[in-house]
């Protein structure tokens, strides 16, 4: 079946430093959609980014990610971390537009300190 791997369980940073959260995936389907969801404390996950196109950078709210099918990766980056970025970040995959369910990674907790 499909799988999504987020290698870091916890990333701690000082405010102002760059952020990179890793995400790799496995699927037999050639055109998956990849997503990043962010979940703040006591809230439900909120869509942050999504991509379908190989090697195209997608950006939202200062975060960006590029889907690289050659390496099956969709890493999340931001040039300068803010305190408000502290949250759980989930990378997720959907096989095609037809299939309705997401496969989530285990999540990475980002903790930004002043």
């Amino acid at each position, binding site marked *: 079946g499909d799988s999504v791997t987020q290698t870091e369980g916890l990333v701690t940073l000082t405010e102002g430093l760059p952020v990179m959260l890793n995400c790799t995936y496995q699927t037999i389907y050639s055109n998956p*959609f990849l*997503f990043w*969801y962010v979940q703040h404390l006591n*809230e*439900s*996950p*909120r*869509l942050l980014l*999504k991509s*379908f196109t190989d090697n195209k950078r997608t950006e939202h709210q200062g975060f960006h990610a590029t889907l690289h099918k050659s390496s099956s990766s969709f890493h999340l980056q931001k040039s300068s971390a803010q305190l408000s970025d502290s949250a759980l970040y*989930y990378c997720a995959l*959907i096989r095609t*537009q037809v299939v*309705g*369910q*997401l*496969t*989530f*990674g*285990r*999540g990475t907790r980002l903790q930004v300190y002043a």
Partner: protein
Amino acid sequence: GALVYQYPRRTICKSGTSMRMECQAVGFQATSVAWYRQSPQKTFELIALSTVNSAIKYEQNFTQEKFPISHPNLSFSSMTVLNAYLEDRGLYLCGARMGGQDTQYFGPGTRLLVL
């Protein structure tokens, strides 16, 4: 915009009893609804995917006998946790999606505590 409501937001039930949770899509037609559970210290596990006019597909380790789901129209779905025990506690999320679209919109979740 697309909104998804879930209720109750939080519920406590005694071990061995059952509870029903609901999911409502507003502003779009939810042709498919996926129910997930986020257990303490775990990621989101897919329980089942419900698509209008199709059979509900349950993931391994989850059954219709334990988590019966109803998806009677394009705006509403409900799921019941039957005979809830400690291992059933967690945050239950519904993710609703419009046919042909890739984005799944999540409700705020129903947090289940089992005593």
